[in-house]
């Protein structure tokens, strides 16, 4: 491919007498084209720019009330749960799937951790492992149904969402385990809620975990064979299979990883709200998809940078807190997030044009 292309350009350059016109060729198309190209090669750039802009705008409007270490780290704390779940969602969406069961898996995992200790008396560390295993198992079932039974991910996870949520309510009898009891008997459950204060900044282990998780996933997706396989499957599953990728195995592993990450989100959730509450996280699936879409990962799979989802979640967090501090009605937040979602997909479509 590249050989013929360069030959073509050589041919043109010899005709016009110019030496190397490759860079000129792009500039002739205009600055807009270069921007488009840059955005195409760095999909996380758009959400990053939006994030920085929104912080600047709210900073100018609100001053130190918003632009303080305290408020800025508060945003990290507020988005940590959605952020972690969005990491799981990103993996699945990169394979051109969608996971509607993420929130339910998160809640069930946290309930398993709580009940295993408070109902059966297991040591908290064992209960946490059981919770993580529970999330992975739910992901495994999703993966088997998608990869082996060949059902569409939307249908599989739509069903699992209901099944897992019902299991959660039946198993827990919708009983909340109080923060005070957890603090006294199983402080390990609240591990991710531990705060590190540096000056005015307050970071929780949960927020740090979220950032580290994203960096780790970004590395794995870009630098390992498994990561490239995930992209390949999302781009064109049949082509990936023909080129020797064991697509079924990779798909199942993606759903298992998603389930495991959701279970970690469940653990972090207990740290954040103190208690084990079966009714929390009901909208986590929609919120995580929102973060992923605003983060510039294509819903059609195979395109996007996982770091974009982190920026997407943070953008929502910045808007939510910023508008609240401005004293705006909560409806404005929903309205603007709706606009952002549509704008994000529009930008995605525009960037796509670079390759056509």
């Amino acid at each position, binding site marked *: 491919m590249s050989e013929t292309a360069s030959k073509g350009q050589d041919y043109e350059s010899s005709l016009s007498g110019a030496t190397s016109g490759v860079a000129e060729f792009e500039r002739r198309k205009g600055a807009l084209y270069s921007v488009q190209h840059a955005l195409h090669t760095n999909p996380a750039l758009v959400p990053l720019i939006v994030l920085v802009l929104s912080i600047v705008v709210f900073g100018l409007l609100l001053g130190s009330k918003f632009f303080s270490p305290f408020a800025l780290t508060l945003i990290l704390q507020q988005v940590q*749960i959605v952020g972690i779940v969005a990491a799981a969602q990103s993996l699945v969406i990169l394979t051109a799937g969608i996971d509607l069961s993420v929130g339910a898996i998160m809640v069930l995992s946290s309930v398993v951790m709580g009940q295993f200790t408070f109902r059966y008396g297991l040591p908290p560390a064992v209960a946490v492992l059981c919770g993580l295993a529970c999330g992975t198992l739910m992901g495994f079932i999703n993966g088997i149904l998608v990869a082996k039974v060949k059902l569409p991910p939307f249908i599989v996870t739509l069903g699992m969402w209901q099944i897992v949520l019902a299991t959660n309510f039946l198993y827990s009898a*919708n009983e909340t385990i109080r923060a005070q009891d957890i603090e006294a008997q199983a402080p390990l459950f609240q591990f991710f809620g531990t705060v590190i204060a540096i000056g005015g900044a307050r970071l929780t282990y949960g927020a740090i975990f979220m950032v580290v998780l994203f960096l780790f996933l970004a590395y794995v997706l870009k630098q390992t064979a498994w990561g490239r396989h995930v992209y390949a499957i999302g781009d064109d599953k049949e082509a990936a299979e023909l080129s020797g990728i064991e697509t079924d195995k990779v798909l199942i592993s993606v759903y298992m990883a998603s389930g495991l990450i959701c279970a970690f989100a469940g653990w972090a*959730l207990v740290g954040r709200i*103190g208690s084990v509450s079966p009714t929390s996280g009901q909208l986590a699936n929609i919120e995580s998809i929102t973060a992923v879409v605003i983060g510039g990962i294509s819903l059609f799979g195979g395109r996007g940078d996982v770091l974009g989802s982190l920026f997407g979640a943070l953008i929502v967090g910045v808007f939510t807190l910023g508008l609240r501090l401005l004293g705006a009605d909560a409806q404005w937040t929903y309205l603007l997030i709706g606009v952002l979602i549509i704008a994000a997909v529009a930008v995605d479509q525009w960037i796509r044009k670079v390759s056509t």
Partner: protein
Amino acid sequence: MKKFLAGTAIALTAAALASGAQAASHSVGACLITKTDTNPFFVKMKEGATAKAEELGIDLKTFAGKVDGDHETQVQAIETCIADGAKGILIAASDTSSIVPAVQQAREAGLVVIALDTPLNPIDAADATFATDNFLAGELIGKWAAAQLGDAAADAKIAMLDLAVSQPTVGVLRDQGFLTGFGIDVMDPNKWGDEEDPRIVGNDVTQGNEEGGRRAMESLLASDPMINVVYTINEPAAAGAYEALKAIGRENDVLIVSVDGGCPGIQNVADGVIGATSQQYPLKMASLGIEAIAKWAEDGTKPEPTEGKDFFDTGVALVTDKPAEGVESISVQEGTDLCWG
């Protein structure tokens, strides 16, 4: 073998049908339709109705929406009850206006319809309403908070943690009740958030759960870190708000008040997490409702509303171990005996 199985199945079905028909013809039928099967409040309501129905020999069928707001399933349940020949329906409606035509249909078919917990819109769309006086529930905690603060109430900094942006009636009544009890002008009583009293730092919504409570509290604390009174729509939201206060080390100098009276909430009052809570009585609502249906089936009398109100008040009590002068309350011990969930 196949024939045998088929034969057994037919026989069993016939037997089931016969016994079902017998039950319908010999006893009074009643239906309980709640918003969800999972909220402890409605679980308790179901327990109360089931126990009373057994006592009075009433054949009770229970239905529930899949989630709060599941209107369709509730309409289906009403239609099922009419077809089943029930004498009356107890309903906690998810959508108080849209349910009215279905309720009308049931009443025309000769059923008595009693709204539990949530009044219909308009309230006289049902034959009767058995509910907590949510405004009074709010007023009690408002008065208590003002009395606790004493002179400091004049420059209190109040956070209002409400239910949802759609401003459902139950949330509005509690919010406005609290403000009235505290001595703040509520402006339009059908709406929260329009008040201009400088003591109110702000309103935010919680969805009535821990996570929402924590987030809302954090946002309001970012507006004004010196908040010292927190109104919460219910006890899970209060628990979340407490976590947010604990995170900045202010859990001991802020007064949190709430409404509901669930067992974890009452325990939180005992532990000092919540200062006082207004307790409501779902079990009583349901058992009184079943009694009313039995009476309707017996001699056709409908339940009367409480004097001076447009609904039957099932009562509310302030639960606290720090009683305030001039505000009637019960102890945590008494509250624990009556709690649910």
